[in-house]
């Protein structure tokens, strides 16, 4: 026999909604099993996710509102630009150089049988500027700065620093989140541009140095095939991803649960959520850009 009833239980996580619990019992043994059915679990999960999404959208609204609210604290913007931008130059240079070189190696070995290896330059330049530079830069910055944003704000939250800020009429979103978002919006594209240049340079070094392709022809073909829109589109992507990463990571920081564990979890969630989001966003943007830009 199966019967359903609605019970209200004030537990954490998925269970903080009125939920349907299916009570099963066996007439012979009298054993009673109380467990929520799978569909109920799924529904509560969906409600929870919807709620979270709603909160995040409200948060985004506030970020936009505070971006245009005075005072504009230029010093904080510059500080974050240094942290996200200037301090990331070495790691972005290194990773994009490596990618450019490896990519060139693979392309050349693939194109050689067709005697088309001179097209390596175009292939690297196009894919770097459209895809690899923004995505790799963003992933690097998530690891380097995104996790730090979540951990820093999370620590401030659990040590009541955010409360203290609020009592001094400073809204943490205004003081902490907005500078990070703006700095990301500016610096992600800048670093992507750097990654473009360095990646292409790395490929050039491999092609002309290790494989002795003719530099002039290589460059001529590359610049013939590479259009400004290829570069712009990558930069636009990077800017969008900068906003996605910084908002997701700061959001997780502001909402971290108490204790070292809470902070650790929030920065893990921030990294996972922002990585997945930027890959999805990249796919969507690529689809749109394919249709309208290239």
């Amino acid at each position, binding site marked *: 026999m199966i019967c359903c009833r609605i019970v209200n239980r004030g537990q*954490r996580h998925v269970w903080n909604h009125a939920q349907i619990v299916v009570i099963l019992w066996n007439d012979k043994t009298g054993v009673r099993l109380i467990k929520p059915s799978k569909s109920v679990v799924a529904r509560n999960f969906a409600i929870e996710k919807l709620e979270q999404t709603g909160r995040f959208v409200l948060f985004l609204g506030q970020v936009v509102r505070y971006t245009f609210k005075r005072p504009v604290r230029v010093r904080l913007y510059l500080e974050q630009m240094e942290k996200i931008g200037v301090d990331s130059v070495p790691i972005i240079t290194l990773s994009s150089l490596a990618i450019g070189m490896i990519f060139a190696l693979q392309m050349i070995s693939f194109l050689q049988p067709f005697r088309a290896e001179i097209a390596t330059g175009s292939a690297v330049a196009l894919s770097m500027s459209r895809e690899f530079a923004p995505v790799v830069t963003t992933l690097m910055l998530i690891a380097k700065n995104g996790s730090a944003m979540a951990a*820093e704000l999370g*620590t401030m939250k659990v*040590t009541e*620093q955010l*409360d*203290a800020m*609020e009592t001094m009429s400073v809204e943490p979103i205004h003081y902490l989140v907005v500078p990070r978002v703006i700095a990301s919006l500016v610096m992600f594209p800048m670093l992507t541009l750097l990654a473009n240049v360095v990646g292409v340079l790395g490929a050039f070094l491999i092609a002309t140095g290790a494989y002795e392709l003719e530099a002039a022809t290589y460059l001529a073909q590359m610049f013939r095939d590479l259009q400004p829109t290829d570069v712009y589109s990558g930069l636009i992507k990077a800017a969008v991803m900068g906003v996605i990463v910084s908002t997701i990571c700061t959001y997780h920081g502001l909402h971290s649960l108490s204790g070292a564990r809470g902070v650790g979890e929030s920065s893990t969630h921030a990294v996972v959520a922002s990585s997945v989001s930027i890959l999805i966003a990249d796919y969507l943007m690529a689809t749109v850009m394919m249709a309208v830009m290239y």
Partner: protein
Amino acid sequence: MSAIIRLEQLSKSFDSLDVLRGISLDFESKEITSIIGQSGTGKSVLFKCMIGIMAPDEGRVFYKGKDLVEMSEEEKELVQRNFGYAFQDAALFDSMSVAENIAFPLREVLGIRNRREIRQRVREMLEWIELPDIGDKNPSELSGGMRKRVGVARALAIKPEILLFDEPTSGLDPVLGQTINDLVVRVNRELELTCILITHDIPAAFRISDKVAFLHQGEVIAQGPPREVIRSEHDMVRQFVENSFSSQEV
């Protein structure tokens, strides 16, 4: 005299834990009020509801007759400018130096831009808490008691109308504790600021306060001038009073 802050039937619970259960209290302007009670009865929660960084489940908080709970964020922000809050764990900004911590409310609340003026007021505050040379240090380099005093200095910096001190003397040695108590009395007398403190230092609380409120299990079980509360018949109050005064005589 009219109450500058009035709490009416304030309730707050976390999940199934009822922390505050209908607290009604008046805080008179320009007086020192001490809140006493066992650890975990919700004294810090009460402060957070009073200043509006935690929303009570039920009840009202009136600041000069205006209900803080009903206010919009903007209005609340304006009211909060009249408060100074020294947190129990100091809550210093660890990305800033001590001096920058104290300068923060001067810049953000009072809008002072003049660097010389800020430096001067920071120095004055550091002298008040008897730590004149730590301005350039980072909060992480300080001892717990030093951090706590910097928290007090940060709350005092703007000389707000109402000061909330959450256990300003716990964790300090008796001499320093006395210094902080003297400081509270001084700002109350000289600057005529309303001071509300949470404290476990019963003798000091009874000595310096105009009014004492005793919290137990989320309710006010005794309140009034020290000489009245000290004669309270309530078991808890008596235990508290007896223990703290007998230990003093040793």
